[in-house]
């Protein structure tokens, strides 16, 4: 009961001090709020960068290549299992490829049957003249054969099941030509819808839908020779994932594309280090400004402090009151900063990455506690001056 009335008086004193001296405290609150804004904003960005940039990095191509471990190829069931294992939300693109040697004008080329939509997800950086559609040819082929968008060309090849035979017999091109076009061969007229420029091996490929390829080679069974996956993960997560895949789907043999994931991790690491550094600098600056404010506050309130002591307040009481005010300032500034900081992070994210971010509720208590701690730490030295204030000397002067 009695203690309660003391606590009430304590709160009444420090809140009165803050409310009725509000105009003098605006700068201090502002300093704390700005610090808290930048802190919570940067922390939000710090935690969002891997996610943000992770997706951004995914536009540089597949980072996980999966081969069959046996001779059977990869089936749809494998892919379903794989998708569940990885988690669908982490998959940016997952393109199965089935390769088939075909001939155009007696020259051998590689036809890649795939899922064109997924391939585009994997490799948005491919430059496509025309459309991402059945059928696309590499720039190299287009130039060699002088093909343009809309032109047609004929591919010839051996149907599925006969290929093994053909290669076993190891027929020369000459012999192959003389064999009559029986049921084991196919010939198909295709139209160029897109020309692919990548600067890589893809320029020598023909791309079609897997279904079209299957139709040509007369094999309705889905069977992929390789899966190219683009997955939101850093190097470590990707390693874990490959281990998991090998363990759970033994007929798949996953390989992370090291070059890509490592450079991604290095860039992310550097960026996060930078954000961390800026955050620390901001915290230090906030601390300095709170220190300055509190020093000024103690100096400005020497009379009041002297009076309290003259009325019988022990040092610890006066210090407790000043720290209490500091805690309240830290709380107000920190709370204001959390929300301003989210706004700030959101704007940065929208402008830099072109996407929103999620509000981290945990940031509210964390930021507030950090800023209370900062104000308290920054106040300790100035507030210690209370002990040097002698009421008789201070109260005497006009």
């Amino acid at each position, binding site marked *: 009961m009695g203690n309660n009335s003391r606590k009430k008086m304590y709160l009444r004193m420090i809140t009165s001090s803050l*409310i009725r001296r509000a105009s003098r405290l605006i700068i201090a609150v502002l300093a704390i709020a700005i610090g808290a804004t930048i802190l919570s904003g940067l922390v939000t960005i710090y935690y969002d960068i891997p996610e943000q940039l992770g997706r951004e990095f995914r536009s540089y191509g597949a980072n996980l290549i999966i081969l069959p471990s046996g001779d059977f190829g990869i089936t749809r069931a494998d892919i379903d299992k794989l998708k569940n294992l990885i988690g669908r939300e982490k998959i940016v693109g997952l393109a199965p490829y089935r390769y088939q040697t075909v001939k155009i004008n007696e020259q051998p080329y590689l036809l890649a049957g795939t899922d064109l939509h997924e391939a585009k997800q994997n490799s948005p950086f491919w430059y496509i003249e025309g459309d991402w559609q059945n059928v696309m040819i590499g720039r190299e082929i287009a130039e060699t054969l002088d093909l343009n968008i809309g032109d047609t060309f004929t591919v010839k090849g051996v149907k599925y099941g006969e290929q093994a035979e053909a290669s076993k017999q190891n027929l020369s091109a000459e012999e192959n030509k003389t064999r009559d076009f029986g049921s084991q061969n196919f010939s198909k007229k295709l139209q160029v819808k897109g020309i692919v420029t990548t600067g890589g091996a893809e320029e020598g490929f023909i791309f079609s839908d897997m279904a079209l390829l299957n139709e040509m080679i007369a094999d309705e069974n889905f069977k992929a020779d390789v899966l190219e996956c683009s997955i939101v993960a850093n190097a470590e997560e990707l390693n874990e994932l490959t281990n998991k895949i090998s363990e759970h789907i033994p007929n798949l043999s996953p390989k992370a594309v090291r070059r890509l994931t490592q450079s991604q991790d290095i860039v992310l690491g550097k960026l996060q280090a930078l954000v961390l550094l800026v955050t620390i600098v901001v915290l230090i600056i906030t601390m300095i400004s709170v220190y300055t404010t509190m020093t000024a506050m103690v100096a400005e309130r020497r009379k009041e402090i002297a009076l309290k002591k003259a009325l019988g307040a022990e040092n610890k009481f006066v210090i407790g009151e000043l720290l209490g005010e500091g805690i309240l300032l830290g709380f107000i500034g920190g709370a204001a900063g959390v929300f301003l900081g989210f706004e700030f992070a959101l704007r940065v994210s929208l402008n830099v990455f072109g996407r929103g971010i999620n509000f981290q509720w945990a940031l509210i208590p964390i930021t507030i506690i950090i800023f209370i701690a900062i104000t308290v730490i920054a106040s300790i030295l100035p507030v210690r001056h209370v002990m040097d204030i002698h009421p008789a000397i201070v109260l005497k002067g*006009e």
Partner: protein
Amino acid sequence: MPILELKNVSKIYGSLRALSDINLSVNAGDWLSIMGPSGSGKTTMINIIGCMDTPSTGSVILDGVDISKENAANLTRIRRDKIGLIFQQFHLISYLTAVENVMIAQYYHSMPDEAEAMEALEKVGLRERAHHLPAQLSGGEQQRVCIARALINSPQILLGDEPTGNLDEENEGIVVDIFRRLHDEGVTIIIVTHDPEVGDVAQRKIILEHGKVIQDIDQSATFGEALKLKSKG
């Protein structure tokens, strides 16, 4: 029986003897005024009595306890329990209302009690102004808040260093009237003043010069009369 005794008290600042071998005894319930020219040591003396300072030599017995050798923390505690202080520059906390200014003295002493603080303000005629901030009060009203604050913990001695120094005639009268009532209630009052009228209303007056008591005047004969004159305002 003396509530306060100064025995051979000196306060020395370098080569300056602000107080020089003072001997003084004050009885409980006495009303004493201290007068003297500027720099004669009045404030120095009242600070020592009020546990805000310690003498260089000599001893000060307050309510049976020698306070001359106490450390700052103990002096704070003794001051809180036994002394009520009034200052020339009222010294109220600007962001607290009148009643809150009274309550902080309770807070540091024991328990804040708003009802009791209101009563104290009522005694000095300020119940109506209890929820005003110091800036909204006149000088006289501010000083009355200070008196209410000084008395709230029932101190044994009320000390004032020029408590009427910043007041006009009328407010001075009001304050002296309050002192009279406190005196009737048995409070020991020690007041430093430059104002001869205020000095004259006490039962006893000492005059300091160069840190020495050069006169010790018993005014009990004229006490009642002077008081009546003064408190009429």
